[in-house]
Each structure stands twice: as structure tokens, then as C-alpha cells.
């Protein structure tokens, strides 16, 4: 007994993981969707508050051309989604932003849709970069059909049958998002201006709601076209509708996002880590009902992975993830039945299981376990998620001395000072945008010598800054230093503004051969937004599924409270 007490006393409460461990791109890439992720947090809010989403208008002809309006009622605010359906065209079609064939263009607006709103959107949306949103517009959106799966589903429904699950499971959506632009783009409302009392006031909530509405639109459209095609047409089975998400393509632009919004990134990762630490710190005894819940979640994730048909190039296969989660499930089962972890009593058993498996599991499986743990602290997690925020502005602290700034840099950016920037590989790539649709691109410098480098060269910048700081008197103020070295202004402001944040900057030289862009794209897609089944292409593009398993509007209206993510195939 005294031995047991000694063991229990020695264990320190779990804490958020340290930045130097977590901010490596390979580590960030392994983050999995969680209750903190944007789409999941938003969907849970919609369910909790029982939002009312309904079709107000669906004037689409048999060619697929027409106008659709949705009404979205939050408890204290109303929104509208105005969409224009177009017959699909194969000309100039691509999932990239440079594409010029879109099957749907729409706008999420504040307030009920007026005829003036609809006509303005009809005129302006097709102009894209030359278009202007109305003052009540939050997001402009575009999506394309997954031609094969959409057509198969349409044909099946028209024949009075449900679509083949084997066909649907190849992609898990009918339409794919090809653009969600807001936060001031095209004149849409900036998110910081919405304020905390706004129904979509959290960062990116408006985009996530629009993604969900695109899912609904894709299902409503295929049902509508089937009805027009045949009198014996049937609707989608609600279980299939729930299973279908909306596709999502993401790529290099998210690396710019990560660097442009360091305070938001840090806030998100910090919220996630705090929730994980709180869950790891639960003291659960044999037979605790929360272990039943956790076991059920892990088993649900295992089935989801076993049924996953996607091919991944650089990430662990779903079969591997499922195999590893079986090991975690066995450990939870042991804890549930005996109260022990590996035969030992532990103060923080969930933390002990995490420690035991961290090196053994593929990273995706380990992070799945951590993400699922968050479900055990729902109130704390929802509070943390609701507080995720971060202004974009960075400011100079002019009275700080050269000595103080130098010390700060050595403490927080030693990794950047240690990277060898003198090799040819260190600056192999340039990040730029093309004049066509402003598409973010990354290419070898010799292939695009005229490009202006838009990437943030943290490593080269910090090394150059430290060299110049070393040339000046230690008591010189930053104000005087920047008079002499104005080219360091942005980096100095960034370093000073972020000094108290735990996770603002990935530890990487994004210009180098060694940097894998898909790692940070995946952080944003999977961890931040909560996208499932993210297939990777050429180490730079992802195709995934948003709102996979999200409840239908009827279920949201009814306040359906069960865990909806990781849906099993609806057979």
C-alpha cells in the first residue's frame, strides 16, 4: 500500500505539450479532427442551439440551371444562403482556383434573402475578383460536382433506388468545395468586425457553416434533379445524407495562412493542448462510465478507418491506424475492467496510456486517441474552443533593448539560428502567386526567376536580425535599431508580439528542399478544420471530406446530441 501511494504521489499532472516538440511540421501533420476543430465545434453549436435550416426556394430546371435560397435561423439571428446552380461543363474544369467551370456559386448573407440580394449576387459572383459583395455578405462560395458519383446517385434515385454505398464511399461526397472566400475578400464582412455576440462571430464559423450548406445543397440538388427526371424518384435515405460530406481541396495557400495568422494558430493549438491535458489528467477508476464512452468512441474510429477506401501517399494507411487503435482499445478495456494500466495502478491512467503508446503507434493513431480524449471533457473543451481568437496585427515594442530582444530570440528561435541557410537547398524554392486567379504556387527558383517571394523566411530573417543586433550596443532601443535597420521591422514586430504565445510558428524553413508543404496543409485541414479522409497528392495538395457524418437539418432542429463524427458506412 505504501508502495502504491509512493507511485501515485510521484506522477505529475499532465500538461500541454512543449512547443519545441509540437511545432515540428511532421508532428503538426498528425493532428486529427477533434471537438475543438472548426467544423465539429460549429456543428455542435448548431445542434446545441437547435438552428433551423430550411429551403426557401429551389428553382432549378432539368439541365441543372437555376436559383436556390436557404434560410438559416440561429436563436438570435437569421442568415440566408443564395446559390446559383449551373449545368456542369468539362471545359476549363479543374479543382484548382484557376478553374473556370463551377457548378455552384453562392453567398452566405446576414438576414433573410431579398430580391435585391439575389440579383446582386447573380451579377457579381461570376466576376469573382472583379465582383463586389453586398455589405451583408459573409462568404462567397463555389463548388463542383464529383461528376461520376453525382451522376450515379442521380440515376439511382431516379430509378427509385438508393445509390450504391460502394460507389459513394470512393469519395464520400457529391460536390466538392472549390472556394470559400470571406473575411473581407470581395468586400465581404471582416470576421473581427462581427464581435463575440454575433451568431457566427468565431473565426471561420461563417465558412464552416457555408461548407455545411454546400453539403445540404448537393443532396437537395441531386434529389431535385431525380424528381424532375422521373416520377418514381425517391429521396436520399437520411442515413446516406448524413454519411455524405462535402469535398474539399486545399493546397499551398494554407502555408501563407499559417504565417499570416500566428496568434490564431497559437490560440487554436493551445486550446487543443489544454483540452487534451485536462482529459489526460482525469482520475478514472475501474468501471467509470467515461471509460465506456471512450471505448465506444475508439471502436467507432476503428470501424471508420477499416472502411476507409482512400489511398494515402505520405500518411499512415487507415489499416495501420485501425490496427494501432485496437491496441489502445485493449488498454482502455484493461483499465475499465481492472483499474490498471499494464498491470499497474496509475494516478492519471489516460495519461499513462498516452505515454505508453506515444512511441509505439503511428502518429495518426496516437493523435486520434488524444482527440477522442477531448470528448471526455466536453464543457471545458467547448469553452476553450469558443475562446479561440487572434488578431492579425503585430506591433513593435520600441523601448525594448537590443540585449533583451537578443535574449528573447535565443530563447524562442534557437531552432531558426541553428538551421544552415548557406546551402543551395536552403533557398531552393520560392513561394509566389500567379496573376491568374492569384493561385499560390511553389517552384524551384530557377524555374520562375521573376517571382516575388511571398513566403516568410523566418530562418534567414532571424539569422540576419541576430547578426545585426550583434553589431549594436546592448542598451540601444529597438526604435533606434529599426531606424538603422528598417528591413527588420516586420520580423521584430512579429517576434515581440508573439513572445508570450506558446505555439505561433512552425519550426521549419519553408524554402528548403526538406520542407514538405502538405504537412502544414494537413494541420489546417485535419486538425484546425476537422476534415476527414484527406488524400495527399504530390506532397502539396489534399482532397478531403468536410462535415462527414454531420447531422441533417431535421436532426439539428431536434437537437440530436450523439457523437456524429467518424460515420460508419450506412448499410
Amino acid at each position, binding site marked *: 500500500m505504501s508502495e502504491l501511494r509512493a507511485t501515485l504521489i510521484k506522477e505529475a499532472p499532465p500538461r500541454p505539450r512543449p512547443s519545441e516538440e509540437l511545432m515540428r511540421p511532421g508532428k503538426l501533420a498528425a493532428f486529427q479532427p477533434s471537438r475543438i476543430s472548426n467544423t465539429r465545434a460549429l456543428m455542435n453549436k448548431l445542434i446545441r442551439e437547435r438552428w433551423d435550416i430550411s429551403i426557401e426556394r429551389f428553382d432549378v430546371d432539368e439541365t441543372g440551371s437555376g436559383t436556390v435560397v436557404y434560410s438559416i435561423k440561429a436563436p438570435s439571428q437569421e442568415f440566408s444562403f443564395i446559390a446559383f446552380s449551373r449545368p456542369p461543363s468539362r471545359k476549363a474544369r479543374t479543382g484548382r482556383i484557376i478553374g473556370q467551370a463551377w457548378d455552384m456559386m453562392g453567398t452566405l448573407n446576414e438576414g433573410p434573402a431579398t430580391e435585391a440580394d439575389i440579383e446582386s449576387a447573380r451579377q457579381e459572383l461570376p466576376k469573382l475578383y*472583379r465582383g463586389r459583395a453586398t455589405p451583408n455578405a459573409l462568404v462567397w462560395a463555389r463548388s463542383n460536382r464529383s461528376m461520376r458519383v453525382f451522376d450515379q446517385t442521380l440515376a439511382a434515385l431516379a430509378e427509385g433506388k438508393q445509390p450504391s454505398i460502394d460507389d459513394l464511399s470512393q469519395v464520400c461526397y457529391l460536390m466538392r468545395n472549390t472556394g470559400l472566400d470571406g473575411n*473581407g*475578400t470581395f468586400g465581404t464582412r471582416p470576421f473581427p468586425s462581427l464581435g463575440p455576440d454575433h451568431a457566427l462571430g468565431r473565426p471561420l464559423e461563417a465558412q464552416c457553416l457555408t461548407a455545411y450548406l454546400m453539403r445540404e445543397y448537393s443532396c437537395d440538388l441531386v434529389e431535385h434533379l431525380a424528381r424532375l427526371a422521373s416520377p418514381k424518384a425517391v429521396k436520399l435515405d437520411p442515413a446516406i445524407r448524413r454519411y455524405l460530406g462535402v469535398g474539399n481541396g486545399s493546397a499551398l495557400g494554407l502555408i501563407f495562412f499559417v504565417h499570416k495568422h500566428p496568434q490564431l494558430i497559437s490560440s487554436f493549438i493551445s486550446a487543443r493542448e489544454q483540452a487534451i491535458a485536462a482529459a489526460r489528467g482525469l482520475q478514472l477508476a475501474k468501471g467509470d462510465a467515461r471509460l465506456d464512452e471512450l471505448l465506444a468512441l475508439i471502436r467507432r474510429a476503428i470501424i471508420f478507418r477499416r472502411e476507409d477506401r482512400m489511398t494515402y501517399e505520405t500518411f499512415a494507411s487507415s489499416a495501420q491506424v485501425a490496427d494501432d487503435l485496437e491496441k489502445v482499445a485493449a488498454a482502455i478495456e484493461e483499465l475499465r475492467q481492472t483499474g490498471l494500466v499494464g498491470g499497474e495502478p496509475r494516478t492519471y491512467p489516460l495519461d499513462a496510456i498516452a505515454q505508453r503508446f506515444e512511441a509505439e503507434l503511428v502518429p495518426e493513431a496516437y493523435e486520434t486517441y488524444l482527440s477522442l480524449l477531448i470528448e471526455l471533457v466536453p464543457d471545458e473543451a467547448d469553452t476553450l474552443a469558443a475562446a479561440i481568437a487572434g488578431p492579425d496585427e503585430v506591433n513593435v515594442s520600441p523601448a525594448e533593448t537590443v540585449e533583451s530582444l537578443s535574449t528573447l530570440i535565443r530563447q524562442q528561435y534557437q531552432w531558426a539560428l541553428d538551421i544552415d541557410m548557406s546551402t543551395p537547398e536552403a533557398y531552393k524554392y520560392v513561394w509566389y502567386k500567379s496573376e491568374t486567379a492569384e493561385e499560390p504556387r511553389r517552384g524551384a527558383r530557377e524555374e520562375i526567376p521573376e517571382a516575388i517571394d511571398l513566403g516568410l523566411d523566418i530562418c534567414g530573417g532571424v539569422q540576419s536580425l541576430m547578426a545585426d543586433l550583434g553589431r549594436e550596443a546592448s542598451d540601444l532601443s529597438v526604435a533606434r535599431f529599426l531606424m538603422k535597420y*528598417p528591413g527588420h521591422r516586420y520580423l521584430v514586430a512579429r517576434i515581440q508580439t508573439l513572445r508570450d504565445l506558446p505555439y505561433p510558428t512552425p519550426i521549419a524553413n519553408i524554402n528548403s528542399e526538406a520542407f514538405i508543404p502538405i504537412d502544414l496543409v494537413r494541420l489546417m485541414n485535419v486538425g484546425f478544420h476537422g476534415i476527414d479522409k484527406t488524400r495527399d497528392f*504530390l506532397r502539396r495538395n489534399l482532397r478531403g471530406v468536410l462535415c462527414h457524418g454531420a447531422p441533417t437539418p431535421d436532426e439539428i432542429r431536434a437537437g440530436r446530441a450523439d457523437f456524429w463524427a467518424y460515420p460508419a458506412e450506412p448499410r
Partner: protein
Amino acid sequence: MLNSQNTEMLRIMPREMRMMTERILSLTSLPKGFYLAAQDLVMYSQKLGLGGFALLEERFELLKHADLGKISIISEEGATLRLDAGDQHAWCVIPGVIDLLGELAHSFGAARITVVNALDPSELQLTSSLAARNGIAVTVAGSDEILLAASAISLSGDISQDEPLLWELLQEGAAIPAPLWWRIYHLAQKALAPDSVVSRRHAGPLIVNDDGTVIGRKDNDDETDISFLTSPKISGYETEGAHS
């Protein structure tokens, strides 16, 4: 929306103004580390009814040759300082002036800086709005020689109180004549790389070689029109009023 001269006015939001400012300044001699931190200057100028984007367009050729090294401190005594702008544009001077006001206010509780030899000196008026985020209240007086006086203030953390002009910009944007904005837009486009078949290979889930072969898996569900990716020129979206 038309103004009193019957010119169409556009409501432009901060994100767009910052982006165009950054792109245009990237075409000048100003260092990247400077213009990345100077995105709000023209936006504030526009909102305050100063020179704004019309002035940016007018001074663009001059800014191409900007030299921040010509800005220097002429004299200094306690909390008072005299700064020679070295015939540089006021926008090039403002960030450093805010720094110096902040440093002196930190040391002495208040600060006074006189700026001489600045081009478009009236633009220094925007300092009072821009400096708020740095925790100093600034008054601006004078026409050729500009006197800026600062005192330390505490910030609440609420942007609507700390930076009312930025809050107004986030709420309403700035009204800009349509012809001017589209000229600015096209000028900023020059900072983007020309599109080409080679450049198109630097993004996307697959790469199309010159011989038409494709690198990468095709299960991306894009139904990509390969001829589109290999066409010598991709036309833009600008089908309506693109060059108005």
C-alpha cells in the same frame, strides 16, 4: 453607390486594401520587412480623407526609389527630438516616428518630435490614428514642419476602443472611386508572377508534362480539363468591366 460627382464608389475592406498596398510596395525599393509592416498606412490615409490610394498611385514612381537610410535624427534633448526625413515620403517616416515617440514616452511619459523635409508632410496626420495600437496618444500640428506630441495611454484590449479608426474600417471599409480602385488593382497585379505552363506545374494535384503525360495520381476527383492546364494562355475572370 455614387458620390457627388456621380462617380461609382466601391466599399473596399481592410483585407483588400492591405493586400494591394503590400503588393504595390513590393514593386518599390522598400525592403520586404518594412512594407509588410506598413500595410495600414495607405488604408488609414484613405479613410481619413488624406491622399490615400490616389496618392499611392501618384507617388508610385517616386517610391520605387525610396531610401530609408536617408532618414536621420538631427538633434535630441530629453523627450524632444528633431527628425530629418531626407526628402522621403511621409509614409516611409511614420513607422519610425511612432517607434521613437513610443520609446521617448516610455522613458519620459511624453514625447515631442518635429519632422522636416518629408514629402507630402500632411500624411503625417495619420500618425495619431495609427499610433493608438502602440499605447500612445499622438497630436499632430504644422504644415511643412510637423510637430508630433505623444503621451502614454493604457490599452483596454478592445479594438473598438483602442483603435476606433481600424474598428470603423473593419465595420464599413473605405469608399474608393471605382476607376481608381481598379487601376490600383491592376497595378498590384504586377507583383504577381505571369502565368505559364511551367508555373502551372508549381501547384495542383497533378503535373502535366510537355508531352502530355501526367505525373501524380488521378483519383483527385477533379475531372480536370488537361488541355486547360497546357494551354499557352489562360484567360482571366475579367469578362465584365475588367478594364474600366
